[in-house]
């Protein structure tokens, strides 16, 4: 790892100030993506601004028909949360499938969505739940937030503070994990909520997480696994790599979607 300078932020305002003091600074939350990347010398921030001790970025609340998860909430906290299990059990289930217990104790929802790894789990749920990404300066609809592989609508110094969503009537998540890394080779989150049926697909898209319009249309009239049997996915828009071809993933999208609906 290249040398770096560590700073611990005490508030969102403090973090913005620390980040502004250097061109090459990066935020670190759980560090479960950033530290391994720095160890491999694929990232070399001159400064690290630690968000893990910022109280205003923590905690889960459900009120006024919205669920709010602070960006600093760990995967383990989401997986165990009684509030999330009541409001959206599929999201608690998703969090329980991320990596391993040690990764879940450190990794955060804010870090995961800011990173937007094409094989990360949370982005599919954010799309399907029509979540709002709350930053230090604005609110961004999930549909506008995830813009490509490891790309988001965030400005360079913008901090994800929380995510919010309306609890869905029904939701399910099904993931085919890569046997070695446990990241999603394909993961599908389906939700029937106030805005209709939405389907978020991760791990499969050549351009990152995406919504599956044909599946949403099929499920709108008939929210059942059978409704998906005739729906196909165009492999030309899917990832092909050593883990699986685009055609293989196209089939996985359908299988995972049917399982997710059955579980919802």
């Amino acid at each position, binding site marked *: 790892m290249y040398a*770096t300078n560590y700073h611990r932020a005490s508030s969102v305002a403090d973090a913005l100030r620390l980040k502004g003091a250097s061109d090459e600074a990066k935020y670190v939350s759980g560090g479960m993506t950033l530290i391994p990347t720095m*160890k491999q010398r694929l990232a070399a921030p001159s400064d690290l601004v630690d968000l893990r001790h910022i109280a205003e970025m923590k905690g889960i609340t459900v009120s006024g028909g919205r669920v709010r998860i602070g960006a600093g909430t760990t995967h383990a906290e989401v997986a165990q949360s009684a509030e999330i299990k009541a409001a959206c059990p599929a999201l608690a289930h998703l969090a329980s499938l991320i990596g*391993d217990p*040690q990764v879940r104790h450190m990794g955060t929802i804010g870090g995961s969505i800011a990173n937007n790894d094409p094989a990360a789990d949370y982005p599919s749920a954010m799309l399907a739940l029509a979540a709002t990404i709350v930053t230090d300066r604005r609110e961004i609809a999930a549909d506008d937030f995830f813009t490509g592989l490891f790309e988001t609508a965030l400005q360079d110094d913008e901090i994800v503070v929380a995510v919010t969503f309306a609890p869905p009537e029904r939701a399910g998540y099904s993931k085919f994990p890569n046997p070695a890394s446990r990241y999603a080779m394909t993961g599908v989150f389906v939700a029937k909520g106030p805005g209709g049926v939405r389907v978020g697909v991760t791990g499969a898209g050549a351009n990152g997480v995406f919504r599956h319009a044909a599946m949403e249309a099929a499920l709108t009239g008939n929210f059942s696994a059978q409704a998906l049997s005739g729906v196909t996915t165009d492999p030309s828009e899917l990832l092909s790599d050593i883990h699986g071809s685009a055609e293989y993933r196209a089939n996985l999208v359908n299988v995972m979607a049917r399982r997710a609906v059955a579980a919802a």
Partner: protein
Amino acid sequence: MTKVSMTVNGRQVSGDVEDRTLLVHFIRDRLGLTGTHVGCDTSQCGACVVHMDGKAIKSCSTLAVQAAGSSITTIEGLAKDGELHPVQAAFKANHGLQCGFCTPGMVMAAVDMINRHGGNLDEATVRENLEGNICRCTGYHNIVKAILAAAAEMSAGRQAAE
């Protein structure tokens, strides 16, 4: 250089480190506690698992400066007054180790999962919770047996104490 202070196995320690120093290197090289191992550079093997503020984490993927102010427990901190921790004793009794390289991380992960699940652990849950620990000798069967035995013994001990 930054001066970091933390509690390790109940003892207050501090030292000057480069900010890029990994927690595992601080523990091994500065504190001389070499029970915590490094088995990979991909954050996947779990040989480096320690507890930070009561939760299992990978010390190869955390900087020492990130851990400043926290309370760390390593494998050396489990035995009390020369008595093995019940999980250590169960690994010994059930032949839960072969070369022993993965064992400190396995034991720390096991103590953490027993803390979270208590006596409700079943085999499937143990195997799921060992997702982040790899045994190159592939002795998972006896590792799982040892964890189940320790969980049963520890929850019986808790009930007897109540």
